[in-house]
């Protein structure tokens, strides 16, 4: 028996797909949970190799995600991160070495994984996600996020929702999002416009724990209170004209010394330079194993979505959110977070509909026309583009300032193809139109 097993292992080890033997066991045959219409074998292998995946973030979660995707058979991976490697990253961001300190995370991570996993291509971009346009995001089969910023998540979420074109099924990009904080974490899958989005789930993010300002000002009890005091109050009092740069060691040193002095006044021990850095930069404690757990579950879902080998998290009308808590023993819970009908990003009216208008008509004409449209019937509308406040019915000062726009022609106010957003107190929802001049 042992001999048979070892010789069959040997056969596979010699073939071209030798290292994917265990993956192929899943992709090469039907399993108890596979869809009856799913066909295992060659097309599935190829689909996985062709699937272009974008990883956002090459930090604690990102290192794990890149490693896992490469070891799961993905061959065409892109990664975006604007940060450079700091010495404090080295304890858990295992794709980086001491000699890499100061280099771009995306570049170093891509090189490392490419070298370690033969045949995988990783294309780094060292910059902001906001630098890239719709066309760039359109090329991917799915996006996996390992971010620590809510702002960046909201941006990519709104971008992916905006990409969805009803005529083009490829325009819906699954968004797989991982997040951790200490022993806690979550993995979630979003099918933009179909299932609950990041904006729908905004209340799932715990707000940053804040201490009342008067506590900081009058009765600090913890070293962190002294640091926050230096950060919020002392800096404003004494260095108002200098913009605080949390990456500038001189600035952190100044805050540290202020905090230390205040802590001495109140006999509070424990203020350190690194604690100052942590409080001021709001560094969330990262635990390597929590990152590993969350990244692993994100990548398994990415694999299942790419191959259809097994049912995955986030399929419309099923569970889409997995929370993990290791604070007190272990607790995990997977549930369906419902789409918010009034979500400002993904409700059907929030998607910009093309609207053909006469560029020579006035804003007033346009609003009058909208008032007659069955879906709107506006009463006290407010309308804007990203750059301009076109007209606000309220508050009075803004009404007065924007009133002159009512008699201007649309082509003086917006460009053809530009998006306008309209809200009205009579409606909980907003309307977005892409104005196209006839």
């Amino acid at each position, binding site marked *: 028996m042992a001999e048979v097993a070892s010789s069959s292992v040997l056969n596979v080890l010699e073939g071209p797909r030798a290292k994917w033997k265990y993956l192929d066991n899943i992709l090469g045959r039907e399993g108890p949970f596979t869809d009856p219409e799913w066909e295992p074998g060659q097309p599935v292998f190829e689909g996985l190799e062709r699937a272009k995946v974008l990883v956002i973030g090459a930090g604690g979660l990102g290192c794990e995600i890149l490693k896992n995707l490469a070891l799961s058979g993905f061959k065409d991976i892109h990664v975006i991160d604007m940060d450079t490697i700091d010495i404090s990253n080295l304890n858990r961001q295992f794709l980086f070495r001491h000699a890499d300190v100061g280099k771009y995370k995306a570049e170093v991570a891509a090189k490392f994984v490419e070298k370690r996993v033969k045949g995988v291509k990783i294309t780094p971009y060292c910059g902001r996600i906001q630098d890239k346009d719709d066309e760039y995001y359109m090329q991917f089969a799915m996006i996996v996020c390992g971010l620590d910023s809510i702002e960046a998540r909201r941006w990519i979420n709104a971008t992916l929702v905006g990409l969805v074109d009803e005529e083009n099924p490829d325009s819906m990009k699954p968004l797989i999002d991982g997040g951790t904080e200490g022993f806690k974490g979550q993995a979630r899958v979003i099918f933009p416009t179909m299932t609950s989005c990041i904006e729908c789930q905004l209340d799932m993010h715990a707000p940053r724990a804040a201490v*009342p300002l008067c506590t900081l000002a009058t009765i600090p009890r913890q070293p962190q209170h002294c640091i926050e005091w230096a950060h919020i109050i002392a800096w404003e009092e004494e260095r108002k004209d200098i913009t605080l740069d949390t990456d500038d060691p001189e600035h952190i040193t100044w805050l540290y010394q202020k905090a230390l002095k205040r802590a001495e006044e109140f006999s509070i021990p424990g203020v350190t330079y690194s604690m100052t850095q942590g409080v001021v930069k709001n560094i969330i404690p990262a635990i390597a194993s929590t990152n590993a757990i969350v990244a692993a579950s994100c990548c398994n879902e990415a694999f299942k979505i790419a191959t259809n080998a097994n049912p995955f998290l986030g399929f419309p009308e099923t569970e889409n959110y997995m929370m993990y808590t290791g604070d007190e023993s272990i607790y995990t819970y997977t549930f369906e977070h419902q789409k918010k009908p009034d979500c400002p990003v993904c409700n059907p009216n929030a998607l910009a509909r093309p609207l053909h208008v006469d560029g020579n008509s006035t804003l007033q004409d346009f609003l009058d026309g909208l008032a007659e449209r069955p879906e709107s019937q506006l009463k006290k509308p407010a309308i804007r*583009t990203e750059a301009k406040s076109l007209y606000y019915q309220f508050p009075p000062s*803004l009404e007065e300032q924007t009133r002159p726009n009512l008699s201007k022609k649309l082509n003086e106010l917006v460009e053809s193809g530009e998006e306008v957003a309209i809200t009205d107190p009579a409606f909980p929802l907003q309307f977005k139109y892409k104005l196209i001049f006839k």
Partner: protein
Amino acid sequence: MLKIWSMKQQQDEAAQAGTKKKKVTAAQLRVQKDLHELSLGSTMRTTFPNPDDILNFTLTIEPDEGMYKGGSFVFDFKINQNFPHDPPKVKCTQKIYHPNIDLEGNVCLNILREDWKPVLNLNAVIVGLQFLFLEPNASDPLNKEAAEDLKQNREGFKRNVRASLGGGTVRGQSFDRVLK
């Protein structure tokens, strides 16, 4: 054929220009909705230094009752793109004598920090600010001296408020004249 090709390129360019147009952000949209819901009444008004930028504005409160009646208080609102996850940053632009507002204009109002939630709106904030002038609160002091005065001697505190509103000096500290 060449003509068709150049037409196609033009189309592509136009399409690209279309995709790069900026979209109204979620924070802008939310502020726009919140503005509809402001109840300013007769004692408050907003000013937008740049009407195109609705994320930065000032709110003037002119209480018509209470110890601060007759004053005109101007607060600076700065809202970032992470609103409503992050609360608005609110500061008083004048140096005033108030137990919950320090000499730099920092405001101690729970919903501006520790009790902020994304379901709260800008109206909740302006109601909270208005309330600070009707019921200054000695138990959340940002200006310790003013809080002490309010606790120890309410009548003396009232006199100090009147003096400070006129631009006078209280305990050696001079204040901005904020009478309307």
